[in-house]
């Protein structure tokens, strides 16, 4: 879901990281959907060179993906002119999560791996050679006397570890070709002024493009390259229309027949955000269970998720991979906190987690509804806003409607929640005005009370609204950080005798202010992920269905 404040926030991120020119290009792409170079130049009123440089930066940092449409036969006016650039909203958003990704890294791997990832996050994408050079640089700076050869080995060793854990992947094709689509879906339409529509459409388009650009699964996490496999991929890809991946990488055509060592240099690698998000999603589920149930349940869930991580086929998987009780118990025993648990305790925790065994042969197997856990966490977040903003009566009413999921009449709500009958409509109205509730009027002819008001929580709408409020709040936090920094600079530039507080005092204050703001932003981002990254949006699914019917 891309909301108005979502765009504002991501543009602000890009502005902070790469400056206002890049941000301008990025904003146009986010608001208008995919554009050609010429159109970007026209909309941004920047010079072609500035736009080109901005795009290069954005592509280097995986924030933009280029693609083109397959030309209809005969009308070849050069594929270059038709290249479209598309901003990748999610990848831009991930830029504020780098500290979280690095934390995962240092928890699971050694410093070498962390350094490697740091390099990839800092530079967006790197070749093996660049990674080795970076490691050498770092080693030199640390004045370690490691020989170059060792350095290279170390990098390769770390890289293999990261490939196995799927934290690093091969970059997607630089410009995949999409099969031409129906007339109404031509790019001309995408550039229409209705930003809401374009955002929705480009999301499904985004999926198509990303799927077309993605390297084959076998190559995605493997450093082994040779001529044969590369050529093989080339031909196999050509067979399927719209997926000509290999040919599009600039270097490929010219360097395919050069020795393997040379090719390694041109293969670009990057951090696999998807895997990090999966990891954070698991973590969020485990922590939520720990809070709601107990440590035992959290331990069991963690063991299950860790054991089946490589088997999950997508990030936003709804249910964990089924596992037998014996397997679960074995996994639980592997962790320190699980060692004290008995089989009975594990079984009790599984029941707590709400999964009943499905008999498969003689073995009982369990799977956990992760979607449900995410949903509960989302509910908690929204309910806590209602409580803080509108008070306890509103909280009770909101929870009633949220649990009920259908229209309920005003008096019925008042009765069930023990709210004074004359107060209930006022509270409900306030919630409705702020888009937290949906209201319908029911007019009954003939009866004495001819009009009833019915209320309900419309989750898809409300979730989108809350997400937008979160982006707004995140934008505010980051702008306040910038403002505090600015103020500090001004203060430091004042002559010493005019400074009211001592420098030390001021710096301490700034430090606490920044800690509060930045930690709040990190926490808010956890909630953002809950609503934006952890759950398949139902809106998207619907869109997919429409597209499917179009394509067929």
């Amino acid at each position: 879901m891309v909301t108005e404040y979502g765009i504002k926030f991501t543009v602000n991120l890009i502005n902070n990281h790469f400056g206002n020119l890049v941000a301008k290009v990025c904003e146009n792409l986010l608001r208008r959907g995919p554009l050609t170079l010429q159109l970007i130049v026209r909309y941004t009123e920047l010079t072609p060179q500035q736009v080109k440089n901005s795009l290069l930066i954005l592509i280097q940092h995986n924030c933009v993906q280029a693609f083109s449409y397959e030309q209809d036969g005969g009308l070849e006016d050069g594929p270059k002119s038709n290249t479209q650039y598309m901003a990748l909203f999610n990848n831009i958003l991930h830029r504020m999560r780098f500290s979280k990704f690095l934390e995962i890294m240092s928890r699971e791997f050694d410093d070498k791996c962390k350094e490697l990832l740091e390099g990839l996050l800092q530079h967006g994408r790197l070749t093996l050679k660049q990674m080795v050079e970076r490691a050498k640089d770092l080693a030199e700076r640390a004045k370690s006397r490691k020989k170059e050869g060792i350095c290279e080995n170390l990098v390769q060793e770390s890289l293999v570890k990261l490939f196995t854990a799927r934290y690093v992947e091969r970059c997607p094709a630089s410009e995949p070709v999409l099969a031409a689509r129906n007339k109404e879906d031509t790019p001309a339409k995408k550039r229409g002024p209705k930003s809401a529509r374009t955002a929705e459409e480009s999301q499904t388009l985004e999926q198509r493009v990303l799927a077309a650009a993605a390297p084959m699964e076998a190559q995605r996490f493997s450093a082994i390259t040779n001529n044969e496999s590369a050529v093989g991929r080339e031909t196999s890809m050509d067979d399927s229309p719209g997926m000509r991946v290999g040919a599009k990488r600039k270097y490929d055509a010219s360097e395919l027949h050069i020795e393997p060592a040379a090719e390694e240099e041109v293969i670009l690698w990057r951090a696999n955000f998807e895997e990090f998000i999966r990891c954070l999603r698991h973590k969020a589920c485990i922590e939520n269970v720990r809070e709601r149930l107990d440590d035992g349940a959290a331990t069991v869930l963690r063991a299950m998720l860790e054991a089946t991580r490589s088997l999950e086929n997508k990030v936003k998987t709804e249910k964990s991979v089924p596992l037998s009780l014996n397997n679960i118990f074995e996994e639980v025993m592997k962790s320190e906190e699980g060692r004290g648990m008995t089989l009975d305790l594990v079984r009790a925790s599984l029941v707590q987690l709400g999964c009943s065994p499905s008999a498969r042969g003689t073995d009982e197997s369990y799977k956990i509804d992760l979607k449900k856990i995410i949903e509960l966490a989302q509910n908690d977040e929204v309910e806590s806003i209602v409580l803080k903003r509108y008070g306890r009566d509103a909280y009770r009413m909101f929870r009633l409607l949220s649990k009920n999921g259908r229209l309920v009449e005003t008096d019925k709500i008042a009765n069930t929640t023990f709210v004074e009958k004359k107060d209930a409509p006022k509270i409900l109205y306030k919630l409705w005005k702020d888009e937290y509730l949906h209201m319908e009027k029911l007019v009954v002819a003939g009866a004495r009370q001819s009009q009833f008001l019915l209320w309900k929580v419309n989750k898809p709408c409300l979730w989108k609204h809350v997400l937008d409020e979160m982006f707004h709040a995140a934008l505010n936090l980051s702008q306040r950080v910038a403002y505090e920094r600015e103020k500090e600079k001004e203060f430091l530039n004042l002559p010493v005798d005019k400074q009211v507080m001592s420098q030390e005092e001021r710096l301490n204050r700034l430090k606490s202010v920044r800690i509060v703001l930045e930690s709040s932003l990190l926490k808010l981002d956890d909630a953002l992920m809950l609503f934006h990254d952890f759950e398949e949006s139902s809106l998207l699914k619907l869109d997919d269905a429409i597209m499917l019917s179009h394509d067929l």
Partner: protein
Amino acid sequence: MSRLQGPSPLKRKRPDSNTPSGSLTEHERLLYDLIRSKQDMAIWTRDMKRETNLPDNVVTKSLKSLQTKKLIKEVVNIQNKGRKHYIATEFEPSMEITGGTWYAEGNLDTEFINFLKKHCVKIIYELKVATLEGILDTIRRSRAFNVEFTTQQVEEIVNALVLDNEIMEVKSNGIGEFDSIPVGRVCYTCTSKGGDTGEPKIGALASIPCGVCPQISLCTPDGIISPKTCVYFTKWLDF
């Protein structure tokens, strides 16, 4: 507590209530019969006037007289507190008029409700897991109230507590804490493990000023209300 008694036992007295009404004027009788015919539903003065076609002053005078003779009484209709409603003394106003058990004189009896809620939480906390019947039984044995509660009344209270997120519904699995409760039966348990029913955990958005800001819709990066000029931020970051 009279409001907890049903109207039925009083209804039966009707046939021998003729004696005090013997000395009524024609208008009074007309009105009295009308009011009595409405039974426990009571009637609004405006409706009386319309149905009897009597002039205002006559109605007012007769009602006063009937009241002093203790034949009728005024009741508050919670649907419309401004409208005067009358009911014959032998009836207790219906649930629709009074609002039911939880209302006293037309107002929600919050004090009584909250007391009962607290009591229920205490019982559930002590029992760890409790069924509805278990809670009702404990209330009856505790004798903290001089009224009898029905299962439905306790259920209403318990449901409100679930909405308050102070307790939660769980299904018995027959093991551990549930060993005395049949499998599959709905039980209640306290949400917070410590038993103290504090506020629920504050979410990420609700814990920063923007999450509860009444002006958030007016706040823009360079507007009059902006994160730079925000008073809530300044207050929050005042170290």
